[in-house]
């Protein structure tokens, strides 16, 4: 059975659309596949030419990522007792011994603290500000909103030098708090604008009903507005996290030691014992995971239009 339909695309256009989607997916996933497969290659496999598609998988990259290693003289190396653990064995196969743990774990945790901290703060402040902008009569409201947006009209790095000097004076350089505040400052304008449009979409009648039902304004906000703004909060949080998580320039400039995040750290792996591509790839792969997991967890909120149909327009 076939025939023309308004809602049902024809078999031909479905086929074309499907093909385009597949091609696009392959193109966008290729770098990801490359990074992930490199992270499971051995050192020689990672730089072989032509590149190996099929290879003996190895955890060498991950072991190297989490350790620092050192080379011993031939006699000393031969005199070592047999390796006790699987990761020691992998290091020995490369002709080295483990000198100690690397700083990757620490840097990764810095990224988690700073990324999620800044995301939480941006969404928290952004939602409160957006609610105020959406619901209250505020003098110069439009100008204020434009002013907030204007902070995004230049690349943030354009103010790198003043921020660097300011942070040095305030003692915020290379601190978690400093980085959280910086990323929040960049993200909060996006959060205000995104959340304002979401909250504008929630009819006031709900809050008015709650006020009459015996609740205070803040309780009405918490019990009625927030649950309906979940979709917007999820979307805003994902955008904020992606920025804070991936940010590189300020991280290089303002962190070097205890607050250094993973992005400036991963390239430094290259210098340790030659060009260790599997370790870099392993770092990148692990670095991808939190945002991916976070996005997948919030996905159902993004797809659900929960306020649909409850107020007659």
């Amino acid at each position, binding site marked *: 059975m076939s025939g023309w339909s308004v809602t049902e695309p024809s078999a031909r256009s479905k086929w074309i659309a499907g093909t385009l989607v597949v091609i696009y997916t392959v193109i966008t996933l290729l770098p990801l596949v490359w990074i992930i497969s490199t992270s499971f290659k051995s050192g020689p496999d990672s730089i072989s030419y032509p590149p190996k598609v099929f290879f003996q998988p190895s955890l060498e990259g991950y072991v190297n990522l989490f350790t620092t290693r050192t080379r011993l003289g031939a006699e000393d190396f031969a005199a070592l007792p047999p390796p006790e653990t699987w990761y020691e064995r992998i290091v020995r196969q490369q002709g080295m011994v483990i000198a100690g743990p690397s700083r990757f774990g620490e840097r990764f945790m810095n990224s988690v603290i700073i990324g999620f901290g800044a995301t939480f703060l941006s969404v928290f402040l952004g939602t409160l500000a957006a609610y105020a902008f959406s619901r209250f009569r505020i003098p110069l409201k439009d100008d204020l909103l434009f002013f907030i947006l204007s902070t995004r009209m230049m690349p943030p790095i354009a103010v790198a030098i003043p921020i660097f000097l300011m942070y040095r004076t305030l003692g915020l350089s290379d601190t978690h708090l400093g980085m959280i505040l910086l990323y929040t400052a960049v993200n909060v304008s996006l959060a205000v604008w995104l959340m304002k449009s979401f909250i504008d979409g929630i*009819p006031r*009648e*709900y809050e*008015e*009903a*709650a*006020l*009459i*039902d*015996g*609740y*205070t304004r803040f*309780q009405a906000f918490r019990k*009625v507005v927030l*649950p*309906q703004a979940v979709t917007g909060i999820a979307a805003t949080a994902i955008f904020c996290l992606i920025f804070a998580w991936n940010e590189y320039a300020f991280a290089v400039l303002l962190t070097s030691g205890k607050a250094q995040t993973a992005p400036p750290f991963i390239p430094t792996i290259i210098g340790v014992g030659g060009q260790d591509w599997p370790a870099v790839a392993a770092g990148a792969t692990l670095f991808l995971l939190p945002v991916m997991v976070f996005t997948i967890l919030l996905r159902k909120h993004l797809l659900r239009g*929960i*306020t*649909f*149909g*409850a*107020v*007659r*327009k």
Partner: protein
Amino acid sequence: MAEVVLDGLGKSFGATRAVDAVSLTIPDGAFVVLLGPTGAGKTTTLRLIAGLERPDSGDIRIDGRSVLDDTPAGRDVAMVFQQYSLYPHLTVRENLAFPLKSPLLRLPADEIARRVGRVAEVLRISDKLDNKATRLSGGEMQRVSIGRALVRSPRIYLMDEPLSSLDAKLRAELRIELKRIQADLGATLLYVTHDQIEAMTMATHVGVLDRGRLVQFGSPREIYETPVSTYVATRLGQPRINVLPAGLFGGAPPGAAQIGLRPEHIRHDHGRPATVRRVEHLGDQTRLHLVLDGHEIVTLADVHTTLAPGDSLPVRPDAPLWFDAEGRRIATGV
């Protein structure tokens, strides 16, 4: 339940006077209906009483005490909105329980369950209690919305055209239901509508608003039989009252400029001949559109009338209403 007094209440939005010096006493246990066209200030009056708007002037007293400084929650009123504003993230049960769980009431769980169950039964939504509020039909949503007001025992219920979004059958059912509930509870109710059947059947008192001013307040019968003006007279009655030049039939009292004829004021036995323009068979009534000296008159005929367009029919007024040039009614002592 309580007596609610509006005293010289005024509210403007920009240059528009939405409510203009309205003074009104809603007696304890009364069912007061506010009538008026869109923009007459009906909804604003409700919102002022509920505390959602702050009046520019005047006072609102519930049980003799001014509530102007009270928050909406503190006023102890319940309101049903025209838009059935159910909380979409909650189930029907949670929606009904929401006012009872407020920090003001803090009722025990078993009491909440008991009240929700009772209201659900009255409104016939017991089988929908665990549905998400968004998974209901329009009529069900509005019943839940009314239910959310009824679970409490506030000092006054405010209802803003609660039945206007429902289909005719449901509207008729809920009309009777609401009236019964109000009578059973002895509740004080302020109800906004522009449906004259709702006003006539449910109200103990009717207030007619015109551009923010309360032009007449009285029993439905007073409003219908002794309207103060043509404006009030046209609010009630179906078909509408015919307002014609006073001289059309003669016998006008001094000062009268217009004659108001409801269908029951028009006799067909003898009088001036009018021409039948159109006959509308509505089933329970048959409307005649007549033309007399170029003026259209709408009246009622026998349901099974054989009159047809072009026929001639004698008409004469019987105890009509008279109005002066400004539309004010002239008392004739009838």
